[in-house]
């Protein structure tokens, strides 16, 4: 079963990536949107970030190579994947 990992704390990125298998997805929300693509070495992982959190912080300048999504898409993602785990 594919898992959607939801990350809100940038300092937990490393242990989160360790727990992720090949087909899993990573969604960055809240403070985790300050991460940049170069922080994430595993290129095979699908990556998204919550648009509202990016805009609120004005961190769009880093031109993240992951996809920006809204809350409607966030809900959809939790159903596209078989389950979610919020990595705290």
């Amino acid at each position: 079963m594919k898992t959607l990992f939801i990350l809100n704390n940038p300092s937990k990125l490393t242990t989160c990536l360790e727990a992720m298998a090949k087909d899993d997805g990573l969604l960055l929300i809240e403070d985790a949107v300050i991460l940049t693509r170069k922080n994430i070495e595993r290129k095979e992982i699908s990556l998204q970030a919550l648009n509202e959190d990016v805009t609120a912080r004005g961190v769009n300048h880093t031109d993240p190579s992951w996809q920006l999504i809204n809350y409607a898409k966030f809900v959809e993602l939790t159903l596209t994947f078989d389950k979610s785990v919020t990595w705290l």
Partner: protein
Amino acid sequence: MKSVCFIFNKPPYGQESGKELLDICLMCSAFEMPITVIFQGDGVLQLIENQQPDILNIKNYSKTFKALKLYGVETVLIDAAGLEKHQLVTENILNIGEIANSKIIQNVIQNTDFSIML
């Protein structure tokens, strides 16, 4: 019945989350859900043998981990990398589970219906 895994990834006592996660785990066991417990990263420190939080006036809940089998928890995985990071060997920790690498841990997370951490 839906299965659930609990991921402990924080050291004990600085935060309350270990105890709070354990309480959810025990409740799910009362509902007879199939349960896996994982100690990952700094979470392996939850299992150190000779904890004495009473000197901080904090309750020692680590004893409850020893009772996980009695509560019907079949699988307990302990992250090998976490042990190594903290220079721990099996003699230093509660003998309640199997040492596992990250591939095995990933596999368990992928194969349960719910995963909870706090």
